[in-house]
């Protein structure tokens, strides 16, 4: 146990060191580095989507709009206000905070409305935001926001990813995580065993939006530009595909989904437009054979898995697996 407590921080420090070296000394092909950054950024986004769509069980399509809030807010800040590259983390943080507020707003209709109707409302949020951005000249209108400082590098992506994973893990293994999943299973029963439904929904939508906002900020600073079209139907679909591919209500599944989809899109690049068809077919196959995704509702937990195999105190290990590792 003590070794494990010590191992995680050590791995994080090593990870930061490696990614620091990668980002400042150009040891690896920039193309591969770019893909790795996409995987990290999308994992953060998928974690955020998974909180609402997976753990809370509410089918929301607001993520593209929320991402736009994060991307534009942090982009504008680092372009015009906090121009010092050292203030980059602050820009991301403020962008994510703006996204968090938009998450609070989206959570309000979820108190009364559910199912398809809520999906339409959240879709409306995304489309309204996109039109607003297209028509506001001071953020570049339809042409988008250009010349955002390209501050995103693999180190920052790694750091934010570690923060995101740790935060989601702590959240899910807390009273809030349990009440979130209880609402998904049976909202009325949850309320009648003392769960504060509104508070839980506000918190989950806010936290989800914060993470999506972080990913939006990192993305706009990776590409050095952002435009309203980035956050339309394609982003809605890709976000959902990654969630369903990797697994609903799973942290490791979120990473798996983001990684598989990003790599697939790159590998299939020679196919041109046809790759979207391959992707869609893949999604259909997964929906038929594993409707809740490759790791739906479960985690890759190597330690507990090994203990279960060696049958040393198998009941305890099973309990640990069920709790997603303690």
């Amino acid at each position, binding site marked *: 146990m003590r070794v494990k407590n010590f191992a995680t921080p050590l791995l994080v420090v090593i990870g930061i060191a490696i990614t620091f070296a990668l980002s400042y000394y150009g040891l690896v092909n920039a193309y591969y580095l770019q893909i790795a950054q996409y995987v990290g950024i999308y994992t953060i986004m998928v974690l955020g989507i998974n909180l609402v769509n997976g753990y809370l069980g509410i089918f929301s399509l607001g993520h593209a709009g929320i991402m736009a809030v994060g991307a534009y807010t942090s982009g504008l800040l680092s372009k015009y206000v906090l121009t010092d590259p050292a203030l980059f983390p602050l820009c991301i943080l403020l962008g994510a905070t703006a996204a968090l507020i938009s998450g609070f707003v989206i959570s309000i209709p979820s108190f009364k409305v559910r199912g398809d109707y809520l999906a339409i409302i959240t879709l409306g949020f995304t489309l309204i935001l996109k039109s607003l951005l297209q028509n506001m000249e001071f953020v570049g209108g339809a042409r988008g926001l250009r010349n955002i400082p390209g501050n995103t590098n693999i180190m920052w992506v790694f750091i934010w990813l570690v923060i995101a994973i740790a935060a989601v893990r*702590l959240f899910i293994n807390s009273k809030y995580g349990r009440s979130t999943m209880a609402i998904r299973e049976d909202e009325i*029963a949850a309320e009648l065993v003392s769960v504060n439904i509104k508070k839980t929904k506000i918190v989950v939508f806010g936290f989800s939006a914060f993470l999506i906002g972080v990913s939006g900020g990192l993305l706009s600073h990776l590409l050095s530009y952002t435009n309203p079209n980035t956050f339309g139907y394609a982003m809605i679909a890709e976000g959902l595909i990654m969630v369903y591919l990797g697994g609903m209500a799973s942290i490791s599944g979120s990473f798996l989904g983001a990684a598989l989809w990003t790599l697939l899109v790159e590998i299939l690049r020679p196919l041109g437009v046809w790759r979207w068809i391959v992707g869609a077919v893949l999604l259909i196959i997964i929906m038929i054979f594993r409707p809740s995704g490759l790791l739906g509702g479960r985690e890759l937990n190597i330690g507990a898995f090994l203990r279960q195999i060696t049958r040393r105190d198998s009941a305890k290990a099973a309990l640990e697996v069920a709790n997603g590792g303690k």
Partner: protein
Amino acid sequence: MAESNAAPILTLQNVCMYFGGVRAVDDLSLEVYHNEIVGIIGPNGAGKTTVFNVLSGVYIPTSGDIFFRGERLNELPPHTIISNGIARTFQNIRLFAKLSVLDNVRVAFFGHIRYSLVDTFLNTRAKRDEEAAIREEALRLLEVFGLADKAALPAANLPYGDQRRLEIARALACKPQVLLLDEPAAGMNPNEIDELNRTIVRLRERFDLTILLVEHQMRLVMGICERVLVMNFGRKLALGTPVEIRNNPEVLEAYLGKVRR
């Protein structure tokens, strides 16, 4: 225990619950005293479950007042009522199917957990200590119901009888003073009902509970209830000890006469 014997712990004063023209509960008054077991019986559609729904805040009564330990409950949201000390089970089992047995119970501590969102994200000592205590307490509750060794299973995988028991365990995790049991014996055979009788009486002593139960099974109601409320068409038909109820001609005519074998 003794000092609260004088004042009723739960009072319904002329409570009405109308759904449009349907009078599900009509002018119902009832006083429940500390540590009592009160049964509510009546034909289908008599408004028994509606009484529970009004008590637990699912419905806001059309008129009338509900007092719990002298405080008016009427417009409070369910989670506040439950946290204050009224817990319930459901007629048709409503467990969190995909969550583990342990988590089903742990969810119900929500209203009593003190650590905040900041504690959650910083994983503070306060959070870890409280989580450990809750886990401990939940496992002890499961032990009472003989479910401790099934703690890791998804609730949906439990056999029917265990699911009913888990519902009661989950309700007790809300730390209630008043427990509302909605048809706890549904689908049980006479032997299981006798066992349930013993369990309910034991729970009352152990957790110092006041229990209201809605039931069709006369074996359960007549066996353990100190008083029985008979409802018909949303109204109070009779209220008295099981013996009085058994011999009440009006009740026999409306309800028991048809059931007695």
